[in-house]
């Protein structure tokens, strides 16, 4: 406290940071929560479709979380423990779903199994309706398993191999070692991954809107209330109900993460390689990973093929006209790139600043600030988007319809990743470095600018790239915020699909993925492949 009084500039910075987090995170959330009256909640209870949507959302969260976590675990185990070939390719493939728009897998799925799908219609001559929960389950499993893979691979790599060697040395066979040493040590990580995915599945909007068909879920129902009826009250009720389990999973995950994992107990990392696996085990994982890789390749191959096809399922002749549309005739792609770049840059600086303030300064309300900075990770995109229209539709902050509201939503929705990267990066910088700067005459903000920002280059790049990718691929947050004047690619894709312009949608989706890939690649180049972006 004394320090703040001596450094008014620092105090001002903290106040501004706190005020912005309140204004753009807490306030919109409060608006949504407080918007409906009791009658609106009674309506909800009386509406059987909405009650069903609630159950469906929870059931899907359980189903997809289990399968995605299981696939992610096996994939991670294969990459960390076995000597299967093509690990580099497998790692890259697992990144793809994470840098793709949420509905990307769904579009491919429709190309394969939809009404005019490659497999259903053309291979088997079927027009079976594959929309519904089964398809959604499959699609979400593919879309979200990479997150589990990343978290679990990190945990598995952190397990000191000497523990496993010690178990072998004491007479345990390979399976017993797995069961009694590896699995128990990995358990906190697996649970952590499951909770992270559960929040993603609950909030998932892109896949359900395309695949779920007449299977109601909370995010899609909330969306329909606004887009169909402009019924803000019901939308607020539905998304508030969605927020409850998402926040619950999130808080649980944070509590688990807060406990020290076993992995660090053995101290220094080991340079030992993992103990060799039995041949049969390696063979199983080779087949398993091959299968997963094949599915991912198929999903992307189909999408790209679709982008170069006249009309999927009808006229198979190759064409570039969808690309001509995407690049030259629509401004949506340009908008998406431009807004996302601005948002990601601001987000990276801002979130590192918040991380610095929280990890290095003492002031009252610090824990609250920390909570606000991670809170957006728990907020479903639909809820957040609705919050923004409710919060900023009248003076003094009438931002509805502007580009600013879109960029602001992208900035603040993506703070948690950058913030966490910043906290982790700062934890690695010895405090004496900053004290040395202060000792030589640098004020707190001087120190942040001269010493910490340059040293936080990797967290900065991580924050920037993840924010960019998430911003450019998001649909749920921005769908309520765009106007015809500043429409975005993801929203356009949804519209194209509505008009059955599948190939155009595929081309636009591919363009988004390419943009994300380019930025990711540039970042990797700029940091000499050191930035831990989408890499376990």
């Amino acid at each position, binding site marked *: 406290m*004394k*320090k703040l009084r*001596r*450094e008014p500039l620092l105090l001002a910075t903290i106040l501004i940071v706190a005020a912005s987090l309140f204004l753009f995170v807490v306030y919109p959330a409060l608006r949504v929560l407080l918007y409906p009256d009791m009658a609106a909640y009674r309506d909800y209870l009386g509406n059987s479709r909405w009650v069903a949507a609630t159950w469906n959302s929870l059931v899907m969260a359980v189903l997809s979380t289990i399968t995605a976590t299981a696939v992610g675990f096996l994939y991670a185990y294969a990459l960390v423990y076995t000597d299967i070939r093509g690990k580099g390719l497998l790692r890259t493939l697992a990144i793809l779903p994470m840098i793709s728009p949420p509905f990307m897998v769904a579009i491919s799925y429709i190309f394969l199994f939809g009404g005019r799908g490659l497999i259903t219609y053309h291979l088997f001559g079927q027009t079976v309706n594959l929309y519904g929960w089964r398809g959604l389950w499959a699609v979400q499993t593919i879309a979200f398993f990479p997150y589990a893979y990343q978290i679990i691979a990190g945990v598995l790599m952190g397990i000191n191999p000497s523990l496993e060697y010690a178990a072998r040395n004491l007479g345990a066979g390979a399976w017993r070692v797995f069961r009694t040493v590896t699995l128990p040590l990995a358990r906190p990580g697996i649970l952590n991954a499951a909770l992270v995915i559960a929040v993603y599945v609950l909030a998932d909007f892109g896949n359900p809107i395309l695949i779920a068909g007449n299977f109601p879920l909370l995010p899609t129902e909330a969306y329909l209330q606004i887009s169909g009826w402009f019924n803000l009250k019901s939308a607020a009720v539905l998304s508030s109900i969605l927020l409850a389990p998402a926040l619950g999973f999130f808080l649980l995950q944070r509590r688990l993460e807060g406990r020290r994992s076993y992995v660090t107990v053995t101290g220094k990392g080991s340079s030992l390689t993992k103990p060799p696996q039995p041949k049969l085990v390696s063979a199983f994982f080779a087949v398993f990973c091959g299968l997963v890789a094949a599915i991912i390749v198929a999903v992307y191959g189909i999408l790209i093929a679709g982008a170069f096809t006249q009309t999927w399922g009808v006229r198979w002749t190759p064409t570039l006209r969808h690309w001509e549309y995407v690049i030259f005739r629509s401004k949506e792609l340009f908008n998406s790139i431009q807004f996302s770049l601005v948002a990601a840059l601001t987000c990276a600086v801002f979130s590192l600043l918040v991380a610095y303030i929280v990890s290095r300064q003492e002031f009252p309300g610090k824990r609250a600030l920390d909570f606000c900075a991670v809170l957006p990770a728990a907020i479903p995109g639909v809820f957040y988007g609705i919050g923004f229209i409710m919060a900023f539709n009248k003076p003094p902050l009438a931002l509805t319809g502007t580009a600013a509201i879109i960029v602001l939503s992208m900035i603040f929705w993506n703070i948690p990743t950058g913030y966490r990267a910043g906290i982790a990066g700062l934890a690695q910088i*010895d405090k*004496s*470095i900053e*004290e*040395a*700067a*202060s*000792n*030589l*005459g*640098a*004020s707190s903000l*001087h120190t942040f600018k*001269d*010493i910490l920002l*340059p*040293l936080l280059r990797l967290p900065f790049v991580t924050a920037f790239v993840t924010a960019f990718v998430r911003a450019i691929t998001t649909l749920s947050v921005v769908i309520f915020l765009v106007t015809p004047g500043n429409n975005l690619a993801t929203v356009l894709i949804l519209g194209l699909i509505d008009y059955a312009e599948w190939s155009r949608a595929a081309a636009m989706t591919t363009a988004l993925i390419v943009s994300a890939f380019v930025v990711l690649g540039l970042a990797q180049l700029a940091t000499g492949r050191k930035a831990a972006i989408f890499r376990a």
Partner: protein
Amino acid sequence: MSEPHVRLVNITKRFGNTVAVDNVTLDVARGSFTTLLGPSGCGKTTALRMIAGFHDPDTGDIFIGERRVNEVPSHQRNTAMVFQEYALFPHMSVFENVAYGLTIRGLPRPQVAQKVRATLKFLALEGLDDRSPHQLSGGQQQRVALARALVMEPEVLLLDEPLSNLDAKLRVSVRTEMTQIQRSLKLTTIYVTHDQEEALAMSDAIAVMHQGRVVRFGTPWEVYYRPRDRFVADFVGLVNFVEGRLVEVGPQVLVADVAGRPLRFAPEGLALRPGDDVLLSIRPECIGISPAAPSGAANVLHGQVAASQFLGRLVRYWVAVDGTTWVVDEPDPSTYSLLSGEVYLTIEPGKVHVIAEENKGEGGR
């Protein structure tokens, strides 16, 4: 000693329930090399960091010169510090590291460059300007850290165990160099270390700290030969403690009854009376050892060699005398081979130090 330059007055600092620094008062003379010496957790680093302004004292005042600096933030104190881990900025070159403070001070570039070069030259770091800290050896990093502090022409130089990351040989040469630099600049320097040998070798004054308090403040000689309690005697160097009761008080010599035997020692101007309990300390190197009974010595003890260590420049013996073990250092082992079996110990009365008897047992470890 000249007037005090840095003054700590009744400084107390708590972290949670732990009292790190407990009511410390200390005057650091201008131009002196003053060491805060103590085991880890004794509060020496906390005290140093309060002088630098990284911690605020809970109570008490810190003065630098005439100025009370409690409210002055660390970046406005000009108390340049050399950190234990050096804390060199890893993303800056040697030159940039050393120039950093001057640039913040707003010095024009040519002047910055000139001062930096002069300092690098002074510390024999020429030609390393463009290196990154990680391209330097430990000793070079240490010197860059020192250069970065010295270039600021600080009012007070603070050194936080700056030698602890150097290997043993380098440590000795750097400490000689550092002392010379300090003497030549007449820079008030406060040095923190847990290494008593370093403290004795480098300091003008040593403040021995224990459990947050300064338990002895004096010249190295005073601290070593005239400890005032068991802790200081024990922490600084190796010592033989002897407990006894005074049986005879004369003007030149006192006699204590130690386990039934008389031990003669000099009075050191203390007002002691027969019947007083005393705690005596005798350094191992102050005891003579010989295979045959010496004649004419004031104190002779007869014992058995229990163990010995050949340390090169000396031999250390553990000698059992009536059930207690004495540590004796034979400073010149070149004259005869290691002793064993029966030996005689001689102690000059002037080399027996009386730890004031009221402190007997306090702080014992």
